[in-house]
């Protein structure tokens, strides 16, 4: 053991912790975040991923809308953290402040079709009232064999039509995926904006479905990070190691 160095290191660690707690605390307070979000994060997003996110294009009307929403005055997220599913088969980066995280099976009509990552500042509210931002990311081989990305969006749009004003569909592509996304406005009582994306790799091996609630410019940046970082990196059908 290197006890001689510990005494030197401890105060430095204390200082480091203080800085992280103080900085993240102030940022989260600005976003109305919970005390639960004061955990130091792995700042793992590479510069190339961040650059890709910064280039992601959204329709101008969506940009204008979130820019004009009152929440946009609340600043930006403190950073992005890496999430993986239960089997490390899928990964995505989400804002540090989305600390309510769930992973598990993607169930459709009670049957497992793939894996899921969900994250929000409050998932229950994200899923029930759309009044807080958050993301659902599901990956499935089963659905990829049955649906194209746009066909999956059609299904999803039908499910969500009652509560949303559909505004259009956009195409996006990067080095790994070909995808499309719907964007809708005035969703739910809170009149939020929702982006639903579906993407496949060129070989069509799997499909990824993403749903994001966007309340602010910061959330739109978060959506860009999600759409630039999601990836299936392992065997979706695998169990534990």
């Amino acid at each position, binding site marked *: 053991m290197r006890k001689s160095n510990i005494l030197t290191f401890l105060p430095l*660690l204390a200082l480091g912790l203080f800085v992280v707690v103080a900085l993240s605390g102030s940022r989260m307070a600005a976003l109305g975040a*919970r005390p639960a979000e004061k955990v130091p994060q792995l700042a793992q997003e590479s510069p190339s991923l961040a650059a890709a996110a910064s280039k992601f294009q959204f329709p101008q009307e969506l940009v204008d809308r979130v820019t004009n929403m009152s929440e946009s005055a609340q600043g930006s997220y403190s*950073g992005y953290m890496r*999430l993986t599913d239960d089997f490390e088969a899928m990964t995505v980066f989400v804002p540090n402040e989305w600390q309510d995280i769930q992973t598990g099976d993607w169930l459709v009509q009670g049957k497992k079709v793939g894996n899921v990552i969900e994250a929000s500042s*409050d998932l229950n509210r994200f899923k029930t009232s759309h009044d807080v931002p958050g993301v659902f990311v599901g990956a499935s081989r089963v659905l990829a064999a049955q649906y194209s990305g746009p066909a999956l969006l059609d299904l999803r749009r039908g499910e969500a039509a009652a509560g949303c004003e559909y505004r259009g569909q956009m195409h996006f592509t990067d080095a790994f995926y070909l995808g499309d996304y719907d964007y809708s406005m005035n969703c739910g009582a809170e009149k939020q904006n929702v982006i639903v994306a579906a993407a496949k790799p060129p070989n069509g091996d799997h499909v990824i479905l993403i749903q994001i609630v966007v309340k602010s410019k910061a959330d739109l940046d978060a959506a860009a990070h999600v759409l630039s970082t999601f990836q299936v*990196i392992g065997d979706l059908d695998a169990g534990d*190691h």
Partner: protein
Amino acid sequence: MKNRRLRQPFISRTEYRVEEFCGKAYSSTVGESRWRARPMLLITVAMLMLLAFLPLKNGIGTVSAEAAGQWYKTDTHVHSSVSSDGYADIGINSLGQSLGYNALFLTDHNGGSNYPARSTGATVNHVTFEDSYMGWPAGTYGTIGSTTNALTSNPHHTGNNSVHMATTSSSYGETFVYTQRGPNYRNGDIIIKVSIYPVRIDPGSGLDVSVSIGEDPTVVRNPTGYTTQAGVVSPGKSTVLIWQLGTTRSPSSDPNARVLTYPLGSYTLNTWNNYTINVTNALNDIPLADRPMDYTGLSRLKMTAAGNNGTADAYFDTYSIDALTPETPQSEYIYRTGVIDDFNTSNFVIVPSYEMGKSKHTNRFDFGIVQASQYVSYTNGSDGILPTEQGGYPAQLNHPGFTITDAETVSTQAHGADIMEVRDPNHIVDWDAILQQGVQVIGSWSADLHDGMAVGKPATYIYAPSLGLDDLMHSLYEGRVYNALNNFSGRLIFNLSTASVEPFAARYPVFVPASQSTANAHLQITTGLFSGDRVYWLVNGTALPGEPPSGGGYNVTKSISLSSSTTYVRVEANTSSGTRRAMTQAIFFVKVPSLPAGMSYYVDRVTTSDNKDYTKLKTKGITASSWNATNSLLSVTLTDPANALVSLRVTTPSSPVSVAVDGTNSPQAASLAAFQAATNSTWFFDSGAALLYVKALHATSVADVVVNFSGAPLPTATPTTAGAPTNTLTNTPTSTPVVATSTPGIPMNTRTATLTATQTSTRTPTNPPGPTNTPTVTSTPTDTPTPPPGGSPLFSDGFESGNLSLWSQTSQMVVQQQEIFTGLYAARGTTTGAAAYAMKQLPSPQTDVFYRMRFKIVSQGANWAYVERFRTAGGTPLIGVYVTQSTVGKLGYRNDVTGASTTSSITVTRGAWHDLQVHLHVDTATGTGFTETWFDGNFVPALSKSEGVGTTATGKLQLGDAGGGYARDIAFDDIAAATGFVGP
């Protein structure tokens, strides 16, 4: 002596951590002088800041301030690149500390790099591509115009198939196959061989084979990264080595995304070209500052067709990558021991641990081996549980339902493991099924990570006095633990009441009066719950209605219904969609007959002399107890390592007169502080809290504690405390019985007279009456009528096969390893009510059967428990040997033909192995017969007498009890039957 490699001074490693916490780049470094130049004032201020803010970070200021221990966030199951399927090296795993982890148990696989890949069975030191995609997923990267990726038999070079890959792109695009892992750099030269059949390579396009360090960004967007030889932990950093035909990727000197390219050689279209690549030579081309630690493995090995404003089209076959001098697992783990603590700090440790088994995975947490002889390998990790426990440390059963079936997990009670993973729904179902058997297994959450740390993963939080392995194991074993996601900000304090700020040691049950219908349990969740979350209390596996949190927390004392002799309660905090955010351990309540209302007791802590042996094998706490209403005596038998100090709590309205340990009165402590400081047996009564504190120091592995509330002298024959034989009678025959000479087929009719003689024995208590009645379990007859072995063997089973295959019918009987008499296995019937038995059909009916067994009553309810029975071949019962209910515990038998029972004065101590042999003679002519019984080597006259059991000979032997309706837990070993006396 650790095998240390050359490494950078420690200060360089702390520097990156400081930067990490400051939010700067991980891989950059700060000059040593910068920190050395800091004035002491800065240090002092920083310490003050730490004190001010840590409670905020932990959210448990009051708890950690008042309690002796503190919470440590751990993951009991993490892999590194030492595992053949792991990407993250040890340095990358150390980033877990930035998520608040204090300890990661690095449980690399059995075999390390030689652990066979699940998909291919190959080890990372020998990977091949031949004929199928197994272990070689297909992928694309970039802009693809058209792509082909298919197996084909024409052409192929070896085997049956090659893989045909073609890419056409108007810019840059790849079609590839890849495999996950290759060798690390400690196994000699790494050689790739590959055969390529190029069809078309347009200018600017090409074909290649490649390997990466830290993962290839054309396969994963965000590479795991790696640790450099200088010890710089660099998440996201990648170095890719590419050997090309034509042109594929461009070289890059970016230190965080370096690409080194090499020509593969010349080629001829439309024919097979064979290539050999020395990867090791290329590794030396990496600039020194970017070279990886030698235990970092090659990853994402590719074969690629890349179109760049054109087309590349080829067939690939006969790929192999080999490490020429593979390191043995022994050497690999010894080396790991030497480097595993490189990233430890005062508040974060990576513990050298081990996932045992190619199947039936289990974890051993003490695997910092330094000698080859210490390395162990198991086909089934479950076989490593017992040796781990024998080595002094608890073992964990991993991921039930994967590598081990759920059914096997339940039927073997997690194979006797001390801990089991309970993070997934099926794990929890299995856990409840085991808990419902009255068996405590501590549940843990772990992420089983192979790819580096991420947020939202399951974690195990341990309340311990320090980060030392022994302290962590102590607390983990005793159950001062809760489970939650790694970003859960609150604490779960689960105990019996608000009076305590520490978690209850769930390993040990709370003993309560049989008349008590409810008991309180208290849960405080300090914070961390969300709006839709619900808190569920589960009693014996049945959930009560969910309750909402209050302000992100929860603080409730709940009255638990004690509807059965054993009740357990545990709590889950679940999300709105039903997934688990956090959960407690299970606290057991066990009813004790005749215990007065208002009294209860439990073990608070066992502290062994060397702070080891916290295992089911050694540290058992209370193994028997009873209440003597006549004399107001509470008798408790403890079974723990010799010299262990056991801390007990007894809820009682009145102070005892004395507390004796092994017959000697303990001194009363003058204060609670004095009690807490004591290292010997003592006691203290807190009248205000109505709580008796007792410490008992084991002289041997069994300690008997008698709490005397009346002051009355103990009776001559103290009752019959299960496992606490306070007054064992000794058989002293006054005449020497004739030794039975067992002759097959010849009834030993002469014995009647002999047996009559033995029944005249007088019985003299070995212990004189007294207030401190010293327990004695040894029965020392002056003359033991034990015959020599003889006759013909009929059957024997020591269960060393690991199963019950020799038995014709079984129910609730399992073969297990935690309760054994000899060898590695024994049978065990554990039930809360169902029949628990095994049947053996003898080859042919026998008039004389000597039935020998070793048995141990682990626990028993308020009913008789049969340990064996003689039956006819058709199953009709003849004689059943039983032990009376737990408060009495006498040996007896029932003549099933006449219905008459005979109970001897022999006490069967609980928690101890006994030797029982019963001879049943059936006179098939007259219907008369007789029995002979030996117990612990001593002849038992009371159970050796004439018994008319009809004229049908014994044809079937029963092990255990085929009756139901009551709880018992009995282990059996060394079963044997013969027509004559069965020897040792």
